[in-house]
Protein backbone atom coordinates (compact mmCIF):
# COMPACT_ATOMS: atom_id res chain seq x y z
CA UNK A 1 0.00 0.00 0.00
CA UNK A 2 1.26 3.45 -0.91
CA UNK A 3 1.17 5.54 2.25
CA UNK A 4 2.79 8.71 1.00
CA UNK A 5 3.88 10.43 -2.18
CA UNK A 6 6.07 13.52 -2.17
CA UNK A 7 6.82 15.52 -5.32
CA UNK A 8 8.75 18.74 -5.75
CA UNK A 9 9.16 20.72 -8.97
CA UNK A 10 6.99 18.66 -11.33
CA UNK A 11 4.42 20.79 -13.14
CA UNK A 12 2.00 22.12 -10.50
CA UNK A 13 3.38 19.86 -7.76
CA UNK A 14 5.76 21.91 -5.65
CA UNK A 15 6.74 20.67 -2.21
CA UNK A 16 3.64 18.54 -2.54
CA UNK A 17 2.81 15.75 -0.12
CA UNK A 18 -0.09 13.34 -0.41
CA UNK A 19 -0.86 10.87 2.37
CA UNK A 20 -3.11 7.97 1.50
CA UNK A 21 -5.31 5.47 3.32
CA UNK A 22 -6.80 2.23 2.13
CA UNK A 23 -9.73 3.94 0.34
CA UNK A 24 -9.18 7.39 -1.14
CA UNK A 25 -11.03 9.82 -3.36
CA UNK A 26 -9.07 12.64 -5.01
CA UNK A 27 -11.38 15.52 -5.73
CA UNK A 28 -11.18 19.14 -6.71
CA UNK A 29 -11.67 21.45 -9.67
CA UNK A 30 -10.22 20.76 -13.11
CA UNK A 31 -6.55 21.62 -13.31
CA UNK A 32 -5.79 21.17 -9.63
CA UNK A 33 -3.26 18.38 -10.19
CA UNK A 34 -5.15 15.16 -9.47
CA UNK A 35 -4.26 13.43 -12.71
CA UNK A 36 -0.72 14.83 -12.45
CA UNK A 37 -0.31 12.77 -9.28
CA UNK A 38 -1.25 9.63 -11.21
CA UNK A 39 1.11 10.66 -14.00
CA UNK A 40 4.01 10.94 -11.54
CA UNK A 41 3.26 7.54 -10.15
CA UNK A 42 3.10 6.01 -13.60
CA UNK A 43 6.43 7.61 -14.54
CA UNK A 44 8.08 6.29 -11.39
CA UNK A 45 6.81 2.82 -12.26
CA UNK A 46 8.21 3.17 -15.77
CA UNK A 47 11.52 4.45 -14.45
CA UNK A 48 11.84 1.66 -11.89
CA UNK A 49 10.96 -0.98 -14.48
CA UNK A 50 14.51 -0.51 -15.74
CA UNK A 51 13.43 0.08 -19.34
CA UNK A 52 13.37 3.86 -19.38
CA UNK A 53 15.93 6.65 -19.39
CA UNK A 54 15.66 9.85 -17.38
CA UNK A 55 15.14 12.28 -20.31
CA UNK A 56 12.25 10.17 -21.61
CA UNK A 57 10.50 9.82 -18.29
CA UNK A 58 11.35 13.15 -16.69
CA UNK A 59 11.85 15.66 -19.52
CA UNK A 60 12.73 19.25 -18.65
CA UNK A 61 9.40 20.46 -19.97
CA UNK A 62 7.79 19.04 -16.83
CA UNK A 63 9.80 21.21 -14.46
CA UNK A 64 7.52 23.66 -12.68
CA UNK A 65 7.24 26.55 -15.09
CA UNK A 66 7.51 29.39 -12.59
CA UNK A 67 10.56 28.01 -10.77
CA UNK A 68 14.26 28.21 -11.71
CA UNK A 69 15.28 25.28 -9.51
CA UNK A 70 16.85 22.60 -11.77
CA UNK A 71 16.20 19.62 -9.47
CA UNK A 72 13.10 17.49 -9.07
CA UNK A 73 12.46 15.33 -6.04
CA UNK A 74 10.17 12.29 -5.81
CA UNK A 75 9.56 10.22 -2.71
CA UNK A 76 7.41 7.17 -2.05
CA UNK A 77 6.51 5.47 1.19
CA UNK A 78 5.25 2.01 0.47
CA UNK A 79 4.09 -0.59 2.95
CA UNK A 80 4.25 -4.28 2.08
CA UNK A 81 3.03 -6.53 4.89
CA UNK A 82 5.13 -5.44 7.84
CA UNK A 83 7.90 -3.79 5.81
CA UNK A 84 8.01 -0.03 5.27
CA UNK A 85 9.92 1.08 2.20
CA UNK A 86 11.12 4.64 1.60
CA UNK A 87 12.23 5.54 -1.90
CA UNK A 88 13.75 8.90 -2.82
CA UNK A 89 14.79 10.03 -6.29
CA UNK A 90 16.50 13.30 -7.15
CA UNK A 91 16.65 14.31 -10.82
CA UNK A 92 18.94 17.13 -11.92
CA UNK A 93 18.34 19.05 -15.16
CA UNK A 94 20.97 21.10 -16.98
CA UNK A 95 20.61 24.85 -17.52
CA UNK A 96 18.77 24.72 -20.82
CA UNK A 97 16.62 21.87 -19.54
CA UNK A 98 17.50 19.57 -22.40
CA UNK A 99 19.47 16.99 -20.43
CA UNK A 100 18.74 15.36 -17.10
CA UNK A 101 20.45 12.83 -14.85
CA UNK A 102 19.88 10.98 -11.62
CA UNK A 103 21.51 12.94 -8.83
CA UNK A 104 20.60 10.39 -6.18
CA UNK A 105 18.39 7.35 -5.78
CA UNK A 106 17.96 5.77 -2.37
CA UNK A 107 15.84 2.90 -1.08
CA UNK A 108 15.51 2.02 2.59
CA UNK A 109 13.43 -0.56 4.38
CA UNK A 110 12.46 0.16 7.97
CA UNK A 111 15.05 2.96 7.93
CA UNK A 112 17.88 0.62 6.86
CA UNK A 113 19.53 1.20 3.51
CA UNK A 114 19.05 -1.30 0.67
CA UNK A 115 20.33 0.78 -2.24
CA UNK A 116 22.20 4.06 -2.42
CA UNK A 117 23.15 5.86 -5.63
CA UNK A 118 24.88 9.23 -5.34
CA UNK A 119 26.65 11.20 -8.06
CA UNK A 120 27.43 8.26 -10.30
CA UNK A 121 28.29 5.68 -7.64
CA UNK A 122 25.95 2.95 -6.50
CA UNK A 123 26.15 0.88 -3.34
CA UNK A 124 24.09 -2.24 -2.81
CA UNK A 125 23.13 -3.77 0.52
CA UNK A 126 22.26 -7.38 1.19
CA UNK A 127 18.98 -8.58 2.67
CA UNK A 128 20.62 -8.56 6.12
CA UNK A 129 21.50 -4.88 5.46
CA UNK A 130 25.25 -5.52 5.41
CA UNK A 131 27.08 -3.51 2.71
CA UNK A 132 27.41 -5.18 -0.67
CA UNK A 133 29.28 -4.17 -3.80
CA UNK A 134 30.02 -0.56 -4.78
CA UNK A 135 30.22 0.28 -8.44
CA UNK A 136 29.97 3.21 -10.85
CA UNK A 137 26.62 3.39 -12.60
CA UNK A 138 24.90 5.17 -15.47
CA UNK A 139 23.40 8.54 -14.44
CA UNK A 140 20.56 8.28 -16.89
CA UNK A 141 18.58 5.36 -15.58
CA UNK A 142 17.40 3.75 -12.39
CA UNK A 143 20.12 1.71 -10.73
CA UNK A 144 17.40 -0.02 -8.78
CA UNK A 145 15.39 -0.80 -11.88
CA UNK A 146 18.09 -2.78 -13.65
CA UNK A 147 19.00 -5.11 -10.78
CA UNK A 148 18.30 -8.76 -11.43
CA UNK A 149 16.53 -10.68 -8.65
CA UNK A 150 18.90 -12.81 -6.60
CA UNK A 151 18.71 -14.74 -3.36
CA UNK A 152 20.38 -11.93 -1.39
CA UNK A 153 18.37 -8.97 -2.73
CA UNK A 154 14.82 -10.18 -2.19
CA UNK A 155 13.89 -7.19 -0.04
CA UNK A 156 15.03 -4.78 -2.68
CA UNK A 157 13.35 -6.51 -5.59
CA UNK A 158 10.19 -6.94 -3.53
CA UNK A 159 9.86 -3.17 -3.45
CA UNK A 160 9.87 -3.07 -7.24
CA UNK A 161 7.35 -5.87 -7.41
CA UNK A 162 5.03 -4.16 -4.94
CA UNK A 163 5.25 -0.90 -6.86
CA UNK A 164 4.29 -2.68 -10.07
CA UNK A 165 1.20 -4.03 -8.33
CA UNK A 166 -0.23 -0.53 -8.37
CA UNK A 167 -2.46 -0.26 -11.43
CA UNK A 168 -2.63 3.35 -12.55
CA UNK A 169 -5.16 3.86 -15.26
CA UNK A 170 -7.84 5.99 -16.80
CA UNK A 171 -10.53 3.94 -18.47
CA UNK A 172 -11.25 5.04 -22.00
CA UNK A 173 -13.47 2.94 -24.23
CA UNK A 174 -10.99 3.24 -27.09
CA UNK A 175 -9.89 -0.31 -26.41
CA UNK A 176 -9.71 -2.41 -29.54
CA UNK A 177 -10.88 -6.01 -29.97
CA UNK A 178 -7.55 -7.29 -31.28
CA UNK A 179 -4.31 -8.15 -29.55
CA UNK A 180 -1.02 -9.37 -30.98
CA UNK A 181 0.55 -10.43 -27.69
CA UNK A 182 -0.05 -10.77 -23.98
CA UNK A 183 0.72 -7.78 -21.81
CA UNK A 184 1.13 -7.98 -18.06
CA UNK A 185 0.91 -4.20 -17.58
CA UNK A 186 -2.13 -2.10 -18.39
CA UNK A 187 -1.38 1.09 -20.32
CA UNK A 188 -2.44 4.40 -18.72
CA UNK A 189 -5.54 4.65 -20.89
CA UNK A 190 -6.22 0.91 -21.08
CA UNK A 191 -5.84 0.77 -24.86
CA UNK A 192 -4.14 -2.60 -24.38
CA UNK A 193 -7.02 -4.04 -22.36
CA UNK A 194 -7.41 -7.09 -24.62
CA UNK A 195 -3.66 -7.88 -24.46
CA UNK A 196 -3.85 -7.54 -20.69
CA UNK A 197 -6.93 -9.75 -20.61
CA UNK A 198 -4.99 -12.38 -22.58
CA UNK A 199 -2.29 -12.27 -19.91
CA UNK A 200 -4.92 -12.49 -17.18
CA UNK A 201 -6.67 -15.46 -18.76
CA UNK A 202 -3.36 -17.34 -18.83
CA UNK A 203 -1.85 -16.33 -15.49
CA UNK A 204 -4.98 -15.95 -13.37
CA UNK A 205 -7.30 -18.58 -14.75
CA UNK A 206 -8.88 -19.07 -11.32
CA UNK A 207 -10.33 -15.59 -11.40
CA UNK A 208 -12.11 -15.99 -14.74
CA UNK A 209 -15.15 -17.59 -13.15
CA UNK A 210 -15.51 -14.72 -10.67
CA UNK A 211 -15.29 -12.18 -13.50
CA UNK A 212 -17.89 -14.01 -15.59
CA UNK A 213 -20.20 -14.34 -12.60
CA UNK A 214 -20.05 -10.62 -11.86
CA UNK A 215 -20.50 -9.65 -15.48
CA UNK A 216 -23.57 -11.86 -15.77
CA UNK A 217 -25.34 -9.60 -13.32
CA UNK A 218 -24.01 -6.41 -14.91
CA UNK A 219 -24.26 -6.95 -18.67
CA UNK A 220 -27.66 -8.26 -19.79
CA UNK A 221 -27.29 -11.69 -21.36
CA UNK A 222 -23.54 -11.90 -20.74
CA UNK A 223 -22.29 -15.45 -21.08
CA UNK A 224 -18.50 -15.45 -21.34
CA UNK A 225 -15.45 -14.29 -23.30
CA UNK A 226 -13.51 -16.19 -25.88
CA UNK A 227 -10.27 -15.39 -27.67
CA UNK A 228 -10.37 -16.27 -31.37
CA UNK A 229 -7.33 -16.56 -33.63
CA UNK A 230 -7.23 -13.95 -36.39
CA UNK A 231 -3.98 -14.40 -38.27
CA UNK A 232 -1.18 -13.41 -35.90
CA UNK A 233 -3.58 -11.66 -33.58
CA UNK A 234 -6.35 -12.76 -31.26
CA UNK A 235 -9.76 -11.15 -31.09
CA UNK A 236 -11.71 -10.86 -27.87
CA UNK A 237 -15.24 -12.08 -28.44
CA UNK A 238 -18.03 -11.42 -26.00
CA UNK A 239 -20.73 -14.07 -25.96
CA UNK A 240 -24.15 -12.59 -25.32
CA UNK A 241 -27.53 -14.30 -25.15
CA UNK A 242 -29.94 -13.98 -28.03
CA UNK A 243 -33.06 -11.84 -27.68
CA UNK A 244 -35.53 -13.91 -25.68
CA UNK A 245 -32.73 -15.97 -24.20
CA UNK A 246 -33.15 -19.07 -26.35
CA UNK A 247 -30.48 -20.76 -28.45
CA UNK A 248 -26.71 -20.50 -28.51
CA UNK A 249 -25.22 -17.17 -27.45
CA UNK A 250 -24.04 -14.83 -30.19
CA UNK A 251 -20.38 -13.80 -30.41
CA UNK A 252 -19.67 -10.08 -30.71
CA UNK A 253 -16.30 -8.43 -31.17
CA UNK A 254 -15.41 -6.56 -27.98
CA UNK A 255 -15.35 -3.38 -30.06
CA UNK A 256 -18.98 -3.92 -31.10
CA UNK A 257 -20.21 -3.37 -27.55
CA UNK A 258 -21.16 0.10 -26.42
CA UNK A 259 -18.60 2.39 -24.77
CA UNK A 260 -20.36 1.96 -21.43
CA UNK A 261 -20.43 -1.83 -21.69
CA UNK A 262 -16.72 -1.96 -22.51
CA UNK A 263 -15.93 0.27 -19.55
CA UNK A 264 -18.07 -1.87 -17.24
CA UNK A 265 -16.30 -5.00 -18.44
CA UNK A 266 -12.94 -3.33 -17.78
CA UNK A 267 -13.99 -2.14 -14.32
CA UNK A 268 -15.23 -5.53 -13.14
CA UNK A 269 -12.31 -7.35 -14.73
CA UNK A 270 -9.94 -5.10 -12.81
CA UNK A 271 -11.80 -5.71 -9.59
CA UNK A 272 -12.22 -9.46 -9.77
CA UNK A 273 -9.35 -10.48 -12.05
CA UNK A 274 -6.46 -9.76 -9.74
CA UNK A 275 -7.97 -10.13 -6.30
CA UNK A 276 -5.57 -12.73 -5.04
CA UNK A 277 -2.62 -10.61 -6.16
CA UNK A 278 -3.10 -7.81 -3.63
CA UNK A 279 -3.08 -5.11 -6.28
CA UNK A 280 -3.91 -1.47 -5.71
CA UNK A 281 -6.22 0.36 -8.10
CA UNK A 282 -5.52 4.00 -8.94
CA UNK A 283 -8.33 4.86 -11.35
CA UNK A 284 -8.93 8.17 -13.05
CA UNK A 285 -12.64 8.86 -13.45
CA UNK A 286 -13.85 5.25 -13.60
CA UNK A 287 -17.42 6.58 -13.71
CA UNK A 288 -17.03 7.98 -17.23
CA UNK A 289 -19.43 6.35 -19.67
CA UNK A 290 -21.09 4.31 -16.90
CA UNK A 291 -24.83 4.50 -16.26
CA UNK A 292 -25.96 5.92 -12.94
CA UNK A 293 -27.50 2.57 -12.01
CA UNK A 294 -24.08 0.92 -12.21
CA UNK A 295 -22.03 3.28 -10.09
CA UNK A 296 -23.02 2.40 -6.52
CA UNK A 297 -22.84 -1.39 -7.04
CA UNK A 298 -19.33 -1.09 -8.51
CA UNK A 299 -18.23 1.39 -5.86
CA UNK A 300 -19.42 -0.78 -2.97
CA UNK A 301 -17.80 -3.81 -4.60
CA UNK A 302 -14.57 -1.83 -4.74
CA UNK A 303 -14.67 -0.52 -1.18
CA UNK A 304 -15.72 -3.93 0.16
CA UNK A 305 -12.80 -5.51 -1.70
CA UNK A 306 -10.24 -3.17 -0.14
CA UNK A 307 -8.42 -5.20 2.45
CA UNK A 308 -9.84 -8.40 0.93
CA UNK A 309 -7.64 -8.87 -2.11
CA UNK A 310 -7.54 -5.30 -3.34
CA UNK A 311 -4.86 -3.62 -1.25
CA UNK A 312 -5.79 -0.01 -1.80
CA UNK A 313 -8.00 2.12 -4.00
CA UNK A 314 -7.43 5.69 -5.09
CA UNK A 315 -10.09 7.18 -7.33
CA UNK A 316 -10.31 10.49 -9.10
CA UNK A 317 -13.90 11.46 -9.69
CA UNK A 318 -16.23 14.37 -10.27
CA UNK A 319 -19.35 12.20 -10.09
CA UNK A 320 -21.89 13.21 -7.40
CA UNK A 321 -22.63 9.59 -6.51
CA UNK A 322 -18.97 8.87 -5.76
CA UNK A 323 -18.37 12.23 -4.12
CA UNK A 324 -21.31 11.81 -1.74
CA UNK A 325 -20.23 8.30 -0.86
CA UNK A 326 -16.56 8.95 -0.21
CA UNK A 327 -15.72 12.65 -0.03
CA UNK A 328 -16.10 13.24 3.67
CA UNK A 329 -14.71 9.94 4.88
CA UNK A 330 -11.96 9.35 2.33
CA UNK A 331 -11.56 12.60 0.40
CA UNK A 332 -8.30 14.29 -0.51
CA UNK A 333 -9.25 17.81 -1.55
CA UNK A 334 -7.05 19.37 -4.22
CA UNK A 335 -6.83 23.11 -4.66
CA UNK A 336 -4.70 25.72 -6.44
CA UNK A 337 -4.67 29.46 -6.00
CA UNK A 338 -4.16 31.49 -9.18
CA UNK A 339 -2.37 28.72 -11.06
CA UNK A 340 0.03 28.33 -8.14
CA UNK A 341 1.15 25.06 -6.58
CA UNK A 342 -1.30 22.29 -5.77
CA UNK A 343 -2.29 21.95 -2.15
CA UNK A 344 -4.16 19.00 -0.71
CA UNK A 345 -6.10 18.62 2.52
CA UNK A 346 -8.21 15.83 3.98
CA UNK A 347 -11.13 18.18 4.55
CA UNK A 348 -12.81 20.80 2.38
CA UNK A 349 -12.09 24.41 3.31
CA UNK A 350 -15.73 24.83 4.22
CA UNK A 351 -18.53 22.40 5.01
CA UNK A 352 -22.03 23.57 4.31
CA UNK A 353 -24.80 22.29 6.54
CA UNK A 354 -27.79 20.84 4.77
CA UNK A 355 -26.06 20.16 1.46
CA UNK A 356 -24.59 16.99 0.08
CA UNK A 357 -20.85 17.32 -0.58
CA UNK A 358 -21.49 17.12 -4.32
CA UNK A 359 -23.98 19.99 -4.13
CA UNK A 360 -21.51 22.07 -2.11
CA UNK A 361 -18.96 21.45 -4.84
CA UNK A 362 -21.42 22.21 -7.61
CA UNK A 363 -21.92 25.62 -6.01
CA UNK A 364 -18.22 26.16 -5.31
CA UNK A 365 -19.06 26.58 -1.64
CA UNK A 366 -16.57 24.04 -0.38
CA UNK A 367 -13.60 26.29 -1.05
Amino acid at each position, binding site marked *: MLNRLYVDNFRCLVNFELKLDRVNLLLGANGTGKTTVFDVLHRLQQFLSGNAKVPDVFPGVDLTRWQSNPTQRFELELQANEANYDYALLIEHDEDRRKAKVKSEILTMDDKTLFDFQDGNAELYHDDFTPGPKYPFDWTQSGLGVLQPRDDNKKLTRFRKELQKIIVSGIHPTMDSESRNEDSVLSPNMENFVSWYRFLSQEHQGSMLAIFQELKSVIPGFNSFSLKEAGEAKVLKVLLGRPGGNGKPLAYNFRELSDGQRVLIALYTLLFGLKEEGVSLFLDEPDNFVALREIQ*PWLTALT*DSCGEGIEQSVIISHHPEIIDHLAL*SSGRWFDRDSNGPTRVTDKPKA*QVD*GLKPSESMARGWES
Partner: protein
Amino acid sequence: MSQDAVLAVLLCEDTQTECFIRRFLVKRNWDRRQIRAETLPAGKGSGLVWVREKFVNELKAYRSRSARAATCLIVASDADDKTVEDRIQTFKDACVEATVAFRQEGERVIFVIPRRNIETWLAYLRGRMVNETDAYPKYDNESDCRDQVTMLDDLCRRQKLEPEPPPPSLAAACSEFKRIAN
Protein backbone atom coordinates in the same frame (compact mmCIF):
# COMPACT_ATOMS: atom_id res chain seq x y z
CA MET B 1 -30.51 -1.85 -20.23
CA SER B 2 -30.25 -2.72 -16.53
CA GLN B 3 -32.02 -6.01 -16.13
CA ASP B 4 -32.36 -6.01 -12.39
CA ALA B 5 -33.88 -3.22 -10.40
CA VAL B 6 -33.09 -2.46 -6.78
CA LEU B 7 -35.10 -4.55 -4.32
CA ALA B 8 -33.88 -3.15 -1.01
CA VAL B 9 -33.39 0.49 -0.12
CA LEU B 10 -31.18 0.99 2.88
CA LEU B 11 -31.65 4.31 4.63
CA CYS B 12 -28.78 4.75 7.04
CA GLU B 13 -27.45 7.42 9.32
CA ASP B 14 -23.79 6.41 9.10
CA THR B 15 -21.44 4.56 6.81
CA GLN B 16 -20.40 1.92 9.35
CA THR B 17 -24.00 0.83 9.83
CA GLU B 18 -24.52 0.85 6.08
CA CYS B 19 -21.44 -1.27 5.51
CA PHE B 20 -22.50 -3.76 8.19
CA ILE B 21 -26.10 -4.16 6.99
CA ARG B 22 -25.18 -4.25 3.30
CA ARG B 23 -22.54 -6.91 3.89
CA PHE B 24 -24.99 -8.86 6.03
CA LEU B 25 -27.59 -8.81 3.26
CA VAL B 26 -24.99 -9.99 0.73
CA LYS B 27 -23.99 -12.73 3.14
CA ARG B 28 -27.67 -13.73 3.28
CA ASN B 29 -27.61 -14.16 -0.50
CA TRP B 30 -28.86 -10.78 -1.59
CA ASP B 31 -27.20 -9.56 -4.75
CA ARG B 32 -25.18 -6.39 -4.22
CA ARG B 33 -26.97 -4.88 -7.18
CA GLN B 34 -30.34 -5.39 -5.50
CA ILE B 35 -29.37 -3.05 -2.67
CA ARG B 36 -29.36 0.71 -2.87
CA ALA B 37 -27.92 2.58 0.11
CA GLU B 38 -28.88 6.13 0.94
CA THR B 39 -26.50 7.14 3.67
CA LEU B 40 -25.72 10.35 5.46
CA PRO B 41 -22.16 11.25 4.43
CA ALA B 42 -19.73 10.93 7.32
CA GLY B 43 -19.58 13.92 9.65
CA LYS B 44 -22.58 15.64 8.09
CA GLY B 45 -24.73 16.57 11.10
CA SER B 46 -27.41 14.69 13.01
CA GLY B 47 -28.00 11.25 11.61
CA LEU B 48 -31.40 10.86 13.21
CA VAL B 49 -32.68 14.13 11.81
CA TRP B 50 -31.41 13.19 8.34
CA VAL B 51 -32.96 9.71 8.38
CA ARG B 52 -36.23 11.07 9.79
CA GLU B 53 -36.42 13.66 7.03
CA LYS B 54 -35.80 11.08 4.34
CA PHE B 55 -38.00 8.37 5.82
CA VAL B 56 -41.42 9.62 4.78
CA ASN B 57 -40.42 10.09 1.15
CA GLU B 58 -38.77 6.69 1.05
CA LEU B 59 -41.91 5.15 2.55
CA LYS B 60 -44.00 6.75 -0.19
CA ALA B 61 -41.55 5.54 -2.82
CA TYR B 62 -41.64 2.05 -1.33
CA ARG B 63 -45.44 1.94 -1.54
CA SER B 64 -45.44 3.22 -5.06
CA ARG B 65 -42.81 0.75 -6.20
CA SER B 66 -44.04 -2.28 -4.23
CA ALA B 67 -47.21 -2.29 -6.29
CA ARG B 68 -44.95 -3.40 -9.19
CA ALA B 69 -42.20 -5.40 -7.52
CA ALA B 70 -41.36 -7.00 -4.18
CA THR B 71 -39.33 -4.24 -2.63
CA CYS B 72 -38.27 -3.49 0.91
CA LEU B 73 -37.17 -0.51 2.92
CA ILE B 74 -34.63 -0.87 5.70
CA VAL B 75 -34.35 2.09 8.02
CA ALA B 76 -31.29 2.19 10.26
CA SER B 77 -30.73 4.72 13.00
CA ASP B 78 -28.93 4.63 16.35
CA ALA B 79 -31.03 4.58 19.49
CA ASP B 80 -28.24 6.47 21.30
CA ASP B 81 -29.46 6.92 24.89
CA LYS B 82 -33.14 6.31 23.99
CA THR B 83 -34.93 3.01 23.56
CA VAL B 84 -35.65 1.21 20.31
CA GLU B 85 -39.34 1.98 20.81
CA ASP B 86 -38.54 5.68 21.29
CA ARG B 87 -36.74 5.75 17.96
CA ILE B 88 -39.52 3.95 16.13
CA GLN B 89 -41.93 6.46 17.68
CA THR B 90 -39.85 9.21 16.06
CA PHE B 91 -40.63 7.71 12.67
CA LYS B 92 -44.29 7.30 13.57
CA ASP B 93 -44.36 10.99 14.49
CA ALA B 94 -42.79 11.89 11.16
CA CYS B 95 -45.61 10.03 9.43
CA VAL B 96 -48.25 11.81 11.49
CA GLU B 97 -46.74 15.20 10.60
CA ALA B 98 -46.75 14.27 6.93
CA THR B 99 -50.22 12.70 7.12
CA VAL B 100 -48.88 9.47 5.77
CA ALA B 101 -49.87 6.13 7.28
CA PHE B 102 -47.12 4.46 9.28
CA ARG B 103 -45.95 0.94 8.44
CA GLN B 104 -48.91 -1.32 7.79
CA GLU B 105 -49.27 -5.01 8.48
CA GLY B 106 -47.45 -6.98 5.78
CA GLU B 107 -45.38 -4.06 4.51
CA ARG B 108 -41.75 -4.94 4.00
CA VAL B 109 -40.45 -1.98 5.95
CA ILE B 110 -38.12 -2.67 8.84
CA PHE B 111 -36.32 -0.67 11.49
CA VAL B 112 -32.79 -1.57 12.49
CA ILE B 113 -32.06 0.39 15.63
CA PRO B 114 -28.80 -0.48 17.36
CA ARG B 115 -28.54 0.74 20.94
CA ARG B 116 -26.39 2.61 21.82
CA ASN B 117 -25.04 2.34 18.29
CA ILE B 118 -23.66 -0.16 15.78
CA GLU B 119 -20.41 -0.42 17.75
CA THR B 120 -22.38 -2.12 20.56
CA TRP B 121 -23.36 -4.90 18.17
CA LEU B 122 -19.88 -5.16 16.70
CA ALA B 123 -18.39 -5.56 20.19
CA TYR B 124 -20.97 -8.23 21.01
CA LEU B 125 -20.22 -10.07 17.77
CA ARG B 126 -16.54 -10.05 18.70
CA GLY B 127 -17.61 -12.16 21.67
CA ARG B 128 -17.69 -9.45 24.32
CA MET B 129 -20.35 -9.14 26.97
CA VAL B 130 -21.83 -5.71 26.32
CA ASN B 131 -24.41 -3.33 27.67
CA GLU B 132 -26.32 -0.79 25.65
CA THR B 133 -25.19 2.28 27.51
CA ASP B 134 -21.38 2.18 27.21
CA ALA B 135 -19.62 3.47 24.09
CA TYR B 136 -17.53 0.84 22.30
CA PRO B 137 -14.63 1.66 19.98
CA LYS B 138 -15.16 2.49 16.33
CA TYR B 139 -13.24 0.76 13.54
CA ASP B 140 -10.68 2.72 11.53
CA ASN B 141 -11.98 1.10 8.35
CA GLU B 142 -15.66 0.32 8.00
CA SER B 143 -14.84 -2.85 6.09
CA ASP B 144 -13.15 -4.24 9.18
CA CYS B 145 -16.61 -5.41 10.29
CA ARG B 146 -16.43 -8.38 7.88
CA ASP B 147 -15.77 -10.97 10.62
CA GLN B 148 -18.68 -9.68 12.68
CA VAL B 149 -20.97 -9.96 9.64
CA THR B 150 -19.87 -13.57 9.25
CA MET B 151 -20.51 -14.17 12.95
CA LEU B 152 -24.02 -12.72 12.77
CA ASP B 153 -24.77 -14.80 9.68
CA ASP B 154 -23.57 -17.86 11.55
CA LEU B 155 -25.75 -17.04 14.57
CA CYS B 156 -28.73 -16.55 12.26
CA ARG B 157 -28.18 -19.99 10.78
CA ARG B 158 -28.09 -21.46 14.25
CA GLN B 159 -31.11 -19.32 15.18
CA LYS B 160 -29.51 -18.39 18.44
CA LEU B 161 -27.75 -15.23 19.53
CA GLU B 162 -24.75 -16.15 21.66
CA PRO B 163 -23.24 -15.35 24.08
CA GLU B 164 -26.41 -14.74 26.06
CA PRO B 165 -27.89 -12.35 26.75
CA PRO B 166 -27.58 -10.56 23.39
CA PRO B 167 -28.13 -6.81 23.22
CA PRO B 168 -31.95 -6.45 23.19
CA SER B 169 -31.71 -4.05 20.24
CA LEU B 170 -29.97 -6.73 18.16
CA ALA B 171 -32.62 -9.28 19.09
CA ALA B 172 -35.27 -6.75 18.07
CA ALA B 173 -33.55 -6.17 14.73
CA CYS B 174 -33.44 -9.91 14.08
CA SER B 175 -37.22 -10.02 14.58
CA GLU B 176 -37.61 -7.13 12.18
CA PHE B 177 -35.59 -8.92 9.51
CA LYS B 178 -38.17 -11.72 9.48
CA ARG B 179 -40.52 -9.27 7.76
CA ILE B 180 -38.29 -9.21 4.70
CA ALA B 181 -37.10 -12.81 4.69
CA ASN B 182 -37.11 -14.03 1.11
